[in-house]
């Protein structure tokens, strides 16, 4: 049997070749932030356990969260919650049949992303300019 030359055959385009549409990006981000928020529940569990265990344990929690890595985790949690919250409302609107037109879906997607970043920036600003901690 003759040996046929192994030419490079055209491959079916996979994920990497497509420009990411807004709806696709917001959809996978919703899923990633959702999984990430599982870590957020651990943070709440740690916080409550630290409060219940006494001042030393609590100050260890606070000082851990004050480190650069702790701050990244904390603001990552804040942004994930803000994004998943806002995009969740977008999903609920779809469930009730609103906002399916592509231009609308793109616009709401960008709005959700912008608002989530804005909310996180607002939390950062509130903490750093002394508008947080009002339950003291």
């Amino acid at each position, binding site marked *: 049997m003759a040996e046929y030359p192994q030419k490079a055959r055209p491959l079916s385009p996979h994920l990497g070749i497509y420009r990411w549409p807004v709806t696709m990006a917001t959809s996978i981000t919703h899923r990633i932030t959702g999984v990430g928020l599982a870590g957020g*529940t651990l943070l709440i569990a740690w916080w409550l356990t630290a409060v219940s265990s006494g001042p030393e344990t609590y100050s260890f929690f606070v000082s851990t969260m004050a480190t650069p890595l702790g701050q990244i985790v904390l603001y990552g949690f804040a942004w994930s919650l803000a994004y998943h919250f806002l995009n*969740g409302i977008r999903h609920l609107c779809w469930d009730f049949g609103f906002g399916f037109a592509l231009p609308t879906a793109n616009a709401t997607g960008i709005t959700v992303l912008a608002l989530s970043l804005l909310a996180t920036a607002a*939390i950062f600003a509130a903490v750093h300019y002394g508008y947080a901690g009002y339950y003291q």
Partner: protein
Amino acid sequence: MSFETPQHKVEGLGSAHSGVGHFKQQRVTAIALIPLTVWFAVSMLGLAGTKEVSVLIFLANPLNAILLGAFILISLYHLALGIREVIVDYIPHEGVKLFLMFCNYGFAFLVAAVCLFALARITIA
């Protein structure tokens, strides 16, 4: 044409074998979490940078303790439903799927237990 009887069609309840129950529960918990998340964010911002005493005083108010408990439990329920969806989407192997489902619900129950124990210790003690 299908040779399936209508009876046989509904018995399987689709690929997740649970019908629309999961879908509805996810939406109901999502709607409940809208006001609870706003409350949680406002509360956490209010407690940011405060001493332990402030948290204890905050949770000494039964309304705050109950709302925090509700936020945590409904969040964990919503989380378990969401992770379940991720697992059935990406894991075709039945054994691995079953194991991950076990981990998923185990995680939710464990975190719920830890949080409720801590809340009880703070508010009752």
